[in-house]
């Protein structure tokens, strides 16, 4: 094997690694920071960035019983109103820590806080 051959092999490996890296980068969703994932009746409804810059807004989510109103502001999220009888989800207040969840069992609406580099796997409620 000559020096040139070794050089070629080295270049080949580097190019292959780059291709592999580029593939992973291209095909994985680019997400940084934390997000709120809203689901209704087991189906994904919305994924929203949860940063201080996220504009204040209310989102209507159609659940099993009716419409839940989700509110976002200051990098936090909460259930503003819900058609469920007990309103545990509304009383829970704001959520912003990755791993946290607001769960409305009767209306089957769920809000998760997720982060790419989450420090926690789950939170005991």
């Amino acid at each position, binding site marked *: 094997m000559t020096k040139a051959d070794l050089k070629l092999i080295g270049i080949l490996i580097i190019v292959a690694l780059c291709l592999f890296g580029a593939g992973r980068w291209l095909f994985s969703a680019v997400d940084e920071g934390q997000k709120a994932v809203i689901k209704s009746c087991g189906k994904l409804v919305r994924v929203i960035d949860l940063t201080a810059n996220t504009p204040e807004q209310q989102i209507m989510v159609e659940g099993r019983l009716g419409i839940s109103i989700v509110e976002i502001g200051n990098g936090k999220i909460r259930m503003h109103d819900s058609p469920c009888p007990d309103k545990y989800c509304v009383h829970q207040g704001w959520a912003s820590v990755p*791993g946290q969840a607001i769960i409305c069992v009767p209306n089957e609406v769920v809000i998760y806080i997720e982060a790419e580099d989450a420090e926690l796997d789950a*939170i*005991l409620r």
Partner: protein
Amino acid sequence: MQTINRKILFATGCVIILALFLGGLYIRQPREYFSEEFLMDTLVSISTYGADTDLLQQATREAFSAMRQIAEKTDRYARHKDPLHTINEIDRINDSAAIAPVKVDADVFAMIKSARDYYDLTNGAFDITIAPLIDLWGFGTEEPRLPSPEALTKTLSLVDASSILLDEAEQTVYFLKPGMALDLGAVAKGYAVEKAAQILSAHGIKKALINAGGNIRVLGERTANDPWRVGIQDPRDPSGILGILNLNAEAATTSGDYNRTFSIDGQTYHHILSKKDGYPASGTISVTVVTKDAFSGDLLSTALFLLEPEAARKLAESMPDTEALIVTSAKKILMTSGLQQKFESTGTEGYSYD
């Protein structure tokens, strides 16, 4: 010229093969299979990890199916919610165990038997014959209400787990007092979660996380030599945490006074009732236990909640493979001696460590 072309062709071929090879290695890496379902008044999620996705899916389905069965057998409210509901195990016991012994299935018998053990361990503070008291308050209905002192006294005489007769050989349950009734609310979720964990394990799954809100069970480690990290919610700030538990193949369970509450005249009441006075237990606002299995964790977290904080710590300390973190109503945190190795405090303001 031809040799250069060949070289380029060869090089391109090599690059593609190498990239495909690396990509293949990546795909073969363990993957997560995630599934969730509304069960037992909460959202239960299972995350399993492995290279064989079909196996993960099959095991997860079986685990959910087993949990669903436990939920159906133990739900006292099912028949109120659905008039077409067929009578389940708990209904059969509560309807007729005061008339004659009722034969029950192995799961329900195991739950009642363990609950009786915790009745003894806590000198009667933990009592699954609490159902008449829960119903008096109207928990689980649309209109909870404050009971009158007379009604409380009358109902409390029915809360007495020492009046349950269990026949191990016949698998029967018999009540010595008419009007007694069982509530498996503090028992069934942990039992179901542990059963799910055993099913996943029997399928050869080495790494999994089952999250049922206040009941979390992990299999294996998160990554090699790295534990799972589970936060404990601040009982007075739902968006904060008190600290982080590092878990390895074990269960963590929390009972808190902030879940399932209702208000009457500005006063908040929670669902863990004490048979001392018939009111929601006070003195403790949150108990977290770390145990080998989710079933004993569920029993113990409620049992400790019903004891005085110091007595609760002593009891947990005396049990093998058991750690506990107790938050008193004065926001003092008591821990068992072995918990320090598993717990990282976040130094949340307002709490002091004892």
